[in-house]
């Protein structure tokens, strides 16, 4: 039994040393993924982005419409090589449209002249043919015969070409590939203002006066309710406030009711200035223990 034991021990030692070499953990060669920074922009922050920049260059200096071309767009060879600017197809002063008329007129004008000459010929011919029996009725009949000839314009197939549009086929761009990114002075309504601190404090003070919270809400409790309130222009409630969010608690409904009652009983809120109506037309008010303390 001794020999097999030695053989076995040696074999295990060999396997273990092999394992030490072969089973060393190989770290992943893949480079660690670059962390991608993601920033959350709240709705208010986003609306504030529309606020203009006071020291922005004047729009006249680089007066380009926002969606105007910045560089020359690539011409498409298959369609037409020529690219015209938009103003060329103005219809009021028409240098382009008048062209074909000019070319047509010389060909159209001869027609009446020819007819007049024909008439003259006829008139000169007729006296020659029948000089002795000159009857006014006959002249009238002759005239009647000639008249249809005068009025019907000659149909000439060769002149159809003159009616065609001789302008070269062309494309007109709507927008170029890149947009003009010049900053503007700001949108007219992009003031993105806020209720002033004094207005907020006044509103808070008023609400804390009016609010009688249900039992179980003291300065330490973390219960809250957020109401969405719509105001009319005279700072009274436009409709019954809606609960947006409240803390999960059995007191929750009572809390919301008391908050609604406070809002209803205290209206109108005269501390909200009408010139800022846009700002307080729709607001969310959070009722919590802080409001109680303040």
């Amino acid at each position, binding site marked *: 039994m001794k020999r*097999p034991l030695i053989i076995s021990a040696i074999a295990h030692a060999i396997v273990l040393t092999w394992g030490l070499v072969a089973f060393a953990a190989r770290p992943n060669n893949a480079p660690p993924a670059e*962390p991608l920074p993601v920033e959350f922009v709240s709705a208010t922050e986003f609306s504030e982005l529309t606020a203009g920049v006071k020291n922005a260059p004047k729009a006249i200096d680089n007066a380009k419409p926002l969606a105007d071309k910045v560089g020359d767009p690539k011409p498409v060879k298959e369609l037409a090589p020529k690219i015209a600017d938009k103003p060329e197809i103005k219809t009021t002063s028409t240098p382009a449209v008048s062209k074909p008329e000019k070319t047509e007129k010389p060909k159209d004008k001869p027609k009446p002249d020819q007819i007049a000459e024909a008439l003259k010929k006829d008139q000169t011919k007729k006296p020659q043919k029948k000089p002795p029996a000159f009857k006014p009725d006959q002249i009238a009949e002759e005239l009647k015969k000639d008249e249809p000839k005068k009025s019907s314009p000659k149909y000439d197939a060769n002149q159809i070409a003159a009616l065609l549009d001789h302008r070269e086929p062309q494309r007109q761009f709507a927008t170029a590939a890149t947009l003009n990114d010049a900053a503007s002075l700001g949108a007219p309504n992009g003031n993105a203002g806020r209720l002033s601190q004094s207005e907020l404090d006044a509103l808070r003070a008023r609400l804390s006066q009016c609010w009688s919270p249900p039992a179980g809400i003291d300065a330490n409790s973390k219960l809250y309710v957020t109401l969405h309130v719509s105001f009319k222009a005279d700072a009274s409630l436009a409709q019954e406030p809606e609960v947006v969010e409240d803390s999960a608690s059995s007191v929750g409904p009572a809390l919301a009711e008391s908050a609604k009652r406070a809002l209803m009983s205290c209206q109108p809120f005269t501390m909200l200035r009408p010139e800022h109506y846009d700002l307080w037309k729709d607001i969310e008010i959070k009722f919590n223990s802080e409001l109680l303390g303040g």
Partner: protein
Amino acid sequence: MNAADITTSALPLTSSDLSMFHLFWQAHWLVKTVMTGLMVCSVWVWAIAIDKTFLFRRIRKSGEGFEQAFWSGQSLEELYTSLAAKPGHSSGVLFVAAMREWKRSLEGHARSFAGLQMRIEKVMNVAIAREIEHMERWLLVLATVGSAGPFIGLFGTIWGIMTSFQSIAASKNTSLAVVAPGIAEALFATAIGLIAAIPATIFYNKFITEVNRQAQHLEGFADEFTAILSRQIDERG
């Protein structure tokens, strides 16, 4: 913890920290004990396996040689004198035991044929039992390691995972860099348990089958030999 912190804390885990040696060395002492025990078991199992393989090969060879000699028509007396000093294994031992009893009964002055057959049977049964006991020796170790090895390894794993969870709780950080080494070392215990248990189970099944085959063979030979001896007794008696 931001991404940069994770990468810097993950960096020190180089290949050397997760080698087999480090996995063993960083483990809890209990897990270390389990691993060492299982390693010893593995060595022991393979030693037994090597030993038994040689043993059965020897038994089969000597058995074949003996039976050729036995059925060759050679005189049993001559065979006995040639084998008595060194009976070898299995059938040879049986034959020698039976012949010794036979000789003693004849050598005695009082020829007691009455109980001779029964005595020979008894002697042969004892010889068979001894032979089988010799063959089955240590096989119980194989059976035990085969059945208990995975459980012992699993115990080490559970313990390692417990400590790694404690380290998560202590560092308040669930990044893989904190959890991975503990779990790797824990799983290493199960791996060693399986490494010890799988060969043990396979060898145990193999050797038990071999032992049963040998036992049947011996009993068959014992019956045949008893029949021959009984014929002799009847002829003499």
